C-alpha cells in the first residue's frame, strides 16, 4: 500500500514541528526552573555585597567581578589571535596542506575536554610560568579553550563575504590589507561577533578549567594576578559541598540572566549594525 505524498508531507511537518517545540520547551523549562528556585534569593544586596561564611550567607559580588574580569581577559586575548588567524588563513594563504593542518589542529583543539585545558593551564601558567592561581592564568587558559571556536566562526564569516567586493576593492587600487580592513571585516563582522559571543558564553559557564587555574578565592580580586572565583565555580562549590542550596540557585539565576542579557545585547547590536549597512 502506498501512502500518498500529501500525508507523508503532513507527517514530516508534524514531526519536525514537535521536535522544535520540544527543544524550545526544554530551554524554557530549564530557565524557569532555575529562576523559580533562584530569584527569591536575588536582590540588589545579593548582587552587591561580599559573601560571608564561605557563601552560606551574604552576596556574590566578588564572583560577579571575577567572572567579568576572567571573561574579559579571555576574550581580549582570544579575539585578536583568533580573528588574525582567520584572516591569515582566508585572505593571505591559498588552500594548501599547511592551511589544512592548521584547520585540523583548530578542530582538534575544539574537541578537547575543558578539564584538560585546566590541567594544562595549571601546569603551564600556574606552575611553570609561576603566575599562580590568578585571573591571568585562568583568562589565558580560557582564551586557548575558546580560540578554535573564534577562528572557525570568523573564518566562515570571512569566506561568506562575496568575492566581488574584494575584486572591486583591488581594482580601485586598494592593497589586500586595505581591502580586509575596509570591505571584508565590516561585512564579516556579524559572524565574527557571533563567534566571540559563543566564546563569552563558554567562558562564563566554564568550571573545570577555571578551578585549576584561577583558583576559588572568595576575596575581591585587587589585580589580574589575584585568584578569583567565578559564578559558575561558586555555584559548583556551594552545591557540591552543601554550603547553601538557596544561594547556589541564586547564583545560577544570576548566571542565566547574565548569559541571556549578553546574547540579547549582542543580537540587537548586530541587527542594528546590519540594518545600518544594508
Amino acid at each position, binding site marked *: 500500500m502506498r501512502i500518498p505524498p500529501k500525508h507523508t508531507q503532513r507527517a514530516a511537518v508534524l514531526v519536525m514541528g514537535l521536535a522544535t517545540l520540544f527543544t524550545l520547551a526544554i530551554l524554557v523549562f530549564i530557565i524557569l526552573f532555575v529562576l523559580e528556585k533562584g530569584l527569591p534569593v536575588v536582590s540588589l544586596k545579593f548582587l552587591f555585597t561580599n559573601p560571608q561564611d564561605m557563601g552560606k550567607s551574604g552576596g556574590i559580588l566578588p564572583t560577579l567581578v571575577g567572572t567579568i574580569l576572567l571573561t574579559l581577559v579571555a576574550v581580549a586575548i582570544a579575539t585578536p589571535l583568533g580573528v588574525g588567524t582567520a584572516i591569515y588563513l582566508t585572505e593571505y594563504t591559498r588552500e594548501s596542506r599547511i592551511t589544512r593542518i592548521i584547520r585540523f589542529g583548530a578542530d582538534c583543539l575544539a574537541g578537547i575536554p575543558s578539564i584538560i585545558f585546566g590541567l594544562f593551564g595549571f601546569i603551564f601558567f600556574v606552575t611553570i610560568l609561576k603566575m599562580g592561581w590568578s585571573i591571568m592564568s585562568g583568562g589565558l587558559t580560557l582564551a586557548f579553550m575558546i580560540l578554535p571556536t573564534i577562528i572557525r566562526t570568523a573564518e566562515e564569516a570571512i569566506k561568506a563575504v562575496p568575492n566581488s567586493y574584494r575584486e572591486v576593492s*583591488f581594482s580601485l587600487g586598494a592593497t589586500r590589507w586595505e581591502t580586509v580592513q575596509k570591505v571584508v571585516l565590516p561585512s564579516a563582522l556579524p559572524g565574527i561577533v557571533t563567534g566571540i559571543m559563543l566564546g563569552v558564553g563558554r567562558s562564563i559557564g566554564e568550571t573545570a578549567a577555571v578551578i585549576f587555574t584561577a583558583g576559588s578565592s572568595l576575596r575581591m580580586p585587587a589585580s589580574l594576578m589575584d585568584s578569583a572565583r567565578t559564578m559558575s565555580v561558586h555555584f559548583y562549590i556551594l552545591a557540591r559541598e552543601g554550603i547553601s542550596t538557596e544561594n547556589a540557585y541564586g547564583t545560577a539565576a544570576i548566571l542565566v540572566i547574565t548569559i541571556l542579557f549578553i546574547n540579547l545585547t549582542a543580537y540587537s547590536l548586530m541587527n542594528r549594525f546590519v540594518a545600518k549597512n544594508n
Partner: protein
Amino acid sequence: MSNKIEIHKLDLHYGKFQALKAVDMPIRERSITALIGPSGCGKSTLLRCLNRMNDLIAGVKVKGRVLLDGQDIYAPGVEVPELRKRVGMVFQRPNPFPLSVYDNVAYGLRVAGLRTRARTAEIVEKSLKGAWLWENLKDRLDSPALELPLDQQQRLCIARLLAVEPEVILMDEPCSALDPIATMKVEELMMELKKDYTIVIVTHNMQQAARVSEYSGYMLLGDMVEFGLTANIFTNPADPRTQDYITGRYG
C-alpha cells in the same frame, strides 16, 4: 593620436592551458577599443591583463609586455595598487559595496588616504556628475546603493571609478545585466567619457561594438585574429574567420 597602451607578444597560461597566444594590440588614447569574439576566446582575460587583475588567480603565468605610456606594467618593482588606480575597471554585474551611495563613491578616495571632508564631498559630486547620476541622487546620497535600480548601480560603479581619477577604464561586458534602455544610457555615457579617458570594452554584443568603438580586436581561442578600425572590421574583414563571426555563422 598616440597609443596609451601597447601590448607586445602577450602569452598567458592558466596552469597548462594557454589562454592568450602572442597577442599584439595597440590601444589609442581617448578612444574606445572593443574586444569581441565568442565565449572563451580570451577577451576578458586580455582585459584583465591590463590592470593585472589576473595576478589574483592562482596558477596564472604571463609572458610578454604591456606598455602603459611606454612603461612595462609587468616589469619588476611595479606597484600594482598604483597601476590599478591608473587603469580602473567596470565589471559585468553592477557590484556596489553594501554601503551608502556616498560611501561607495568615496571608497577609492579613502583608500588613497584622502581625509578632508570638503575635498571628498567635492570629488564625490564631480564623479556622480561625470556618471550622470548627480541630478538623480543628490538628495539620496545616504541611501543604500543596493536599493538603486540596476542601471543606476552600474553607473554608480562608474562614478566610484571616476573618483580615483583613472586614465584608462576597462569595461568587462558592462551592459550584459542591463535592459536596452539602460544599455543605451551607459553607451551614451561611454561616448562622453572617451573625451577624457581611454576606454577598452569587452562585449558579446556586436552591435554594441559597432555603435561605440573606433577600434576593434577580434579574438578566437586566444589569438588576436584581426585588429583595426571598427568600420573596416565590420564592413570589410581581412580574415575569413572574422568574416564568419561578423556574419553570424557562429559564435
